């Protein structure tokens, strides 16, 4: 009973048994986070470097907390203020760090496939914390954990992913994971933000009408509209986007049933999600954050377990 891979590069490479194992292990770690002393010594022989080439608060803190709660030694690397500005290559940077005997690398990079590239060239275990517009596996895992916690199961549930699907690694990882666990998925957004052949490629529904999608779904996972993209003529203005696709309490109240609201964060309040919806009883956004630490602890614990097999 072990993970089938040495790395966590994407949900693409995981089979349903791997996913179940991670989610079940995360339950035990969530219990640890309720104890007076929220720490276990399990990874005290492991050193982990957090290699973040892209900005992040939430994910980085979540990983750091997970590592510290497992008693691992952690090093943080952010690209700004390092030799990357002097032109050092990715491979050189990592090999230098590995020469200092680091066991695992948690990596976020703006280039899709960067962790996969690294995995081919270095012996350490790699955890993808987000690569370009490819995948963000731990986010999808914590989303699934949160849905399972709230609804009891994922199979057969109806999940709507709302927002900039085209550029969202959270959306792609979620689509892979939800389909592998037997959920039904609809992607919702303006046509300019939804890839053309997505319904053929992934067996997901496409819906351009927000209200229809919300009537259909059990859970709405709302993605951030990247403010950087508003000048790329993909939608006319943030205000128009929020009029057509913004979720607020009024729309939620107009639905026949109470749906669950999720968001990976950070929220652009008033754009994709209004405060009265984000802070409502139907939102499990803060539980997602809490579950994130437990899920990441589970991932690190299980990947460290494979270290023994490989030695």
């Amino acid at each position, binding site marked *: *009973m072990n993970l089938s891979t040495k790395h966590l590069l994407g949900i693409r490479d995981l089979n349903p048994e791997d996913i179940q194992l991670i989610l079940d292990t995360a339950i035990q770690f969530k219990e640890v986070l309720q104890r007076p002393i929220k720490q*276990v*010594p399990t990874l005290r022989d492991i050193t982990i470097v957090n290699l973040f080439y892209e900005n992040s608060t939430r994910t980085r803190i979540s990983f750091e907390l997970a590592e510290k709660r497992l008693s691992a030694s952690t090093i943080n690397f952010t690209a700004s203020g390092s030799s990357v500005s002097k032109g050092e290559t990715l491979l050189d940077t990592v090999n230098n760090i590995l020469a200092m005997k680091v066991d695992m690398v948690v990596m976020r990079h703006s280039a899709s496939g960067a962790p996969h590239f690294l995995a081919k060239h270095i012996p350490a275990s790699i955890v993808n914390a987000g690569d370009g517009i490819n995948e963000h596996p731990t986010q999808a895992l914590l989303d699934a954990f949160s849905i399972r916690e709230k609804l009891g199961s994922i199979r057969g549930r109806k999940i709507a992913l709302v927002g900039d699907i085209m550029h969202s690694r959270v959306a792609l990882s979620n689509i892979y994971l939800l389909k592998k666990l037997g959920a039904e998925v609809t992607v919702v957004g303006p046509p300019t933000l939804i890839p053309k052949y997505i319904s053929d490629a992934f067996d997901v529904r496409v819906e351009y009408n927000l209200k229809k999608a919300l009537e259909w779904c059990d859970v709405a996972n709302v993605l951030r509209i990247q403010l950087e993209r508003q000048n790329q003529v993909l939608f006319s203005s943030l205000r128009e986007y929020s009029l057509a696709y913004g979720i607020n309490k009024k729309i939620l109240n107009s639905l026949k049933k109470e749906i669950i609201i999720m968001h990976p964060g950070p929220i652009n309040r008033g754009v994709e999600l209004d405060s009265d919806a984000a802070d409502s009883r139907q939102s499990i956004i803060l539980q997602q954050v809490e579950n994130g630490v437990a899920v990441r602890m589970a991932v690190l614990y299980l990947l460290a377990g494979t270290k023994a097999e490989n030695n």
Partner: protein
Amino acid sequence: MKTILNDQQLAITIQRLSHQLLENHLNLENTVLIGIQPRGIFFSNRIVKEIVKQIPAEKIQYGKLDITFYRDDVRQGLHTLNQTDISFSIENKNVVIIDDVLYTGRTIRAALDALLGFGRPAKVELCILIDRRFSRQLPIQADYIGKSIDSIITQKVKVFWKEKDEKDEVVLVE
């Protein structure tokens, strides 16, 4: 295969151990019972069932502890995680750890470290069903012992419980 305790003897032993516990911890007032996952739980459940005949269930503080994270061989293969459920504080309480077989003592050492994560107990005692004496690899001892046996390293003690194996029996296997 040799039977160490048959179902009758097992029942009487459990009765005796629960009475010994009550003798030292009057009314279980400042005491908590903690069963060790996965196999100690069957034993601790039976102990609690006996105690309930004397003390009302609401007054008993009973928890379950999984020690996987604290094992000293945690890197030698992946062990299945079981549920830890300690919903009360152990600060200043008398803790009785309950497990089925005491062999090398490593499980109990791990349990002691795990308990530190929940507070500082006033006292920790150990209640064990089968004590494989002279086999300790760490300086650990039991306070309440069901039966002490002599065994060699190639032998294994197997405890069968009606709830899971359809019989109550303790055997020594070669």
